[in-house]
């Protein structure tokens, strides 16, 4: 009996060795289980919302004049239409660069630029480093041929549903998720400068209301008839 037990035990061990080795051989033939790092940004719509929160209290304390050297008309003047990427209104030294190391020196955090006597606007999407992909310089005056394009125009400011209620966000949020970069700080045109930059969770109160977005298949509950 004891001998049988030992033989049995031995046999089962042999079987176990076989199965384990076969199993491990089979699994080794599968591709290595490499965990893919995340490709891209989680929740792109929300990325960068709090990007500049560390500056917010400074912005709140900064004394700022209404004259930032740039008003909203200037702001729109170097765009072909509302929402178009602005061209670069100043000369650039390094034509060959994609921009990452150059443009961001001034445009990542802003600040006073004596050469242009202006505050550098802060880019809302510093993670996109090929700046010159969308932003081009303006090297010459005059056009090749006259162009009759009339672009989309900016919405009126101060769209509030109720008197005193927080205004809605009228523009697309793509690459403009970080509100503070354009709505706070000294380079901001005073018309769109927020009075309370320390409240960094902007979309807590300001709803995204870009009415120009056409949404397909909006859910609508069927109405019902009430018998009279």
């Amino acid at each position: 009996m004891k001998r049988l037990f030992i033989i049995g035990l031995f046999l089962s061990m042999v079987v176990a060795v076989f199965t384990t080795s076969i199993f491990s051989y089979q699994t080794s033939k599968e591709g290595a289980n490499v965990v893919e790092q995340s490709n891209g940004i989680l929740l792109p719509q929300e990325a960068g919302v709090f990007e500049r929160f560390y500056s917010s209290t400074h912005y709140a304390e900064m004394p700022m004049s209404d004259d930032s050297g740039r008003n909203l008309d200037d702001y729109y003047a170097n765009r072909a239409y509302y929402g178009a990427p602005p061209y670069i209104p100043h000369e650039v030294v390094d034509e060959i660069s994609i921009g990452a190391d150059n443009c961001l020196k001034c445009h990542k955090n802003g600040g006073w630029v004596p050469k242009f006597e202006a505050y550098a606007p802060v880019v809302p999407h510093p993670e996109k480093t090929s700046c010159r992909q969308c932003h081009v310089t303006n090297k010459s005056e005059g056009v090749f041929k006259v162009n009759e394009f009339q672009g989309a125009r900016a919405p009126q400011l101060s769209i509030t549903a109720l008197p005193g209620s927080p205004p809605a966000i009228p523009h697309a949020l793509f690459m403009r998720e970080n509100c503070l970069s354009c709505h706070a700080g000294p380079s901001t045109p005073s018309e769109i400068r927020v009075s309370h930059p320390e409240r960094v969770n902007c979309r807590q109160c300001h709803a995204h209301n870009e009415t120009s977005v056409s949404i397909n298949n909006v859910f609508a509950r069927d109405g019902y008839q009430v018998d009279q």
Partner: protein
Amino acid sequence: MIFNELSNRRTFLRRMAKLSAMAAATAMFPGIMFPNEQLAAIPNGSIDWKKAPCRFCGVGCGVLVGIQQGKAVAVKGDPKSSVNKGLCCVKGYHSIMALYGADRLTKPLVKENGKYVEKTMDEALQLIAEKMKETIKDYGKDSVSIYGSGQWTIPDGYVASKLFKGCIGTNNVEANARLCMASAVTGFMSSFGIDEPMGCYEDIDHANVFVLWGNNMAEMHPVLFSRLLDQRMNRGSKIVDFATRTTRTSTAADKSIMFKPQTDLAVANSICYEIVNNGWVNERFIENHCNFSKGLTNIGYGMEDKYSFQDKPEMIDFDTYKEFLKDYSPEKVEKISGVSARDIKYMASLYGDPNVKVMSLWCMGANQHTRGTWINNLIYNIHLLTGKISSPGNSPFSLTGQPSACGTVREVGTLTHKLPHGVVMNEEHRKEAAKIWDVPINNIDPKPSYHTVEMFRALDRGEIRFMWIQVTNPMVTMPKLKRYRDAAKKEGRFIVVSDIYPTPTTDIADVILPSACWIEREGMYGNSERRTQYFEQMIEPPGQAISDTWQIVEVARRMGFGKQFAYKKETHIEEIYNEYRRFHDNKKHNMAPLEVLKSQPGAMWPYVDGKSTKWRFNAAYDPACTQGEFDFYGKPDHRAVIWQRPYEQAAEEPDADYPFWLNTGRVIEHWHTGSMTRRIPVLHKAMPQAYVELNPEDAMKMGIQNGDPVKLTSRRGDIILPASINERGMPVRGQVFVPFFDEGMLINEITLDAFCPISKQPDYKKCAVKITKA
């Protein structure tokens, strides 16, 4: 102001009073409106956003075009598009402005006694049809031709092929894509037996290393390049720039390696040498999925008229191939290419490391090459030897330059030897085409006629008497331009040009037809990753302009082919697309139904069982695979081919008389010949004119300063351009670069019409010039 307004008590009260009055009024008189008050609060009035693929390059970004009161007023990237994920480039963002140049062609113009006279569209189309019939009667069917474009929509190219190949019976159908991706096609055909990339843009999200072969992606494929940069930032992927000129891409790359023009052939072979010698070959992959072949060598450059060449492939074995590679050790290649043996070994080690996923990307650098087919083959060799192909992140990826170079020219087959499915030489393919086109099979000529360069030579010689040019500008883009411009101006040649603006090509036209552009009509484009994308008509074309498709349909009907062109005006695009789909009704190439294309930002063929195929030839993703893990089903034996292709010199190399290489290309602001982008003020102001880029040391030696006029002379002629030193790019010593967009400074006057004997694609990147201070 927003906040100040509310903090100001008086304004607040005034506003409050106004709103309460309005509220009260609305309550008392239901339906009462305060239009000014209410409309003012709605931004943009009402903009209707409609999806389309971008008009410009082959990347095929999804864009949303804002339409307001019948005009295109804004553009944004389509966040739903997997191509660009919401981002565009400066051309894309301003693309709609190209529709509104004040000098748009709006009326047909016919040249009468040396002057253009306005005609109605009906008169012009009638004249074209009669002229074609007359020319065919006098000189035979091979005296008429059509020269189209990779900017043709799928229906444009389809009806052109049907009319010329099916109805008239001539293979004189070519497209400018011959100048841009013919070598990519022959590369695919010789290595895999079926055209277009096996991978897709999603490879970018998986690859660890990107090797760019002579490809200034930062300017030419900027949206994809941003995806590369994103991956580098998020996952630490590496970018290796392998080029002949320091560009924006080089400044962004982790490593930039410069080689002497034409020696990419030697370096690619040297990389293979390293892979073989270090035991990095994926033996199992080679054994199961690859063959080795060699073709003819010393194959010439096609510079003489009526040059013809047919490669003779011959199977070899791995050992013979290994023996061949012995001439390409890094130390030997260092001497030819100017690339250090260390850099060659570095590149080889990236390809050779089994834990690294590599994506190779290339475009015109490899394709516009007198050995374009070879260099395409050689890059595939590297990926095949290491088995790094057809799986996520492992991808040799041939990029294209035009929005539908793939969709129209390659898939519809608007090249002299092609049919929508297969080639004219194949009887089965002719039978199928004749059946779908409803023409007698004898109509389709089994012999290819002229490729692009030869077509213009035939125009010069007088074999071709009639040419219809659509959506392209050959009088800027043809190499050795003067000969072909003179040819077109010769007596007894009749040229029809369909375009949207006056260009150097409309200057040589006998009839100019105004075309509807992009979103002014309905159509589809096919991009580099096999993605077919649909766009609806969003705005009205100006004046009498109509789509290129409808121009051809109308002419065909007037020539007596009403039966084959019985499409209804309202639904013709849908009818044509459905007819075209019948050609690709198989698992290897099925196209998505139109409803699918309308509902989403495109679909990738083969579209099987309601799904796009991301990685072809890989059984895990591609339903057309029937054998094993990988199945290169383009070839009869289901094996991809590793080609033995040597390094051979360029057609014209610098010598004592003409000591500089001339390289030509593009810039980010302008698209091709600039007929659209130069009319967009933002882009024109950023890049107003062409220039010649010099190496700073060369310039200093010749006493040339930035902006100085410089005279470039080649054996074909000369041209004066302002010097550009240390600006957009920097060629290596002994080389100059000139962009070709500027019709005021036509660099192609002095380029060479040498081409790859296999693909017949000209080499715009290499010829010899001398430089003097003008």
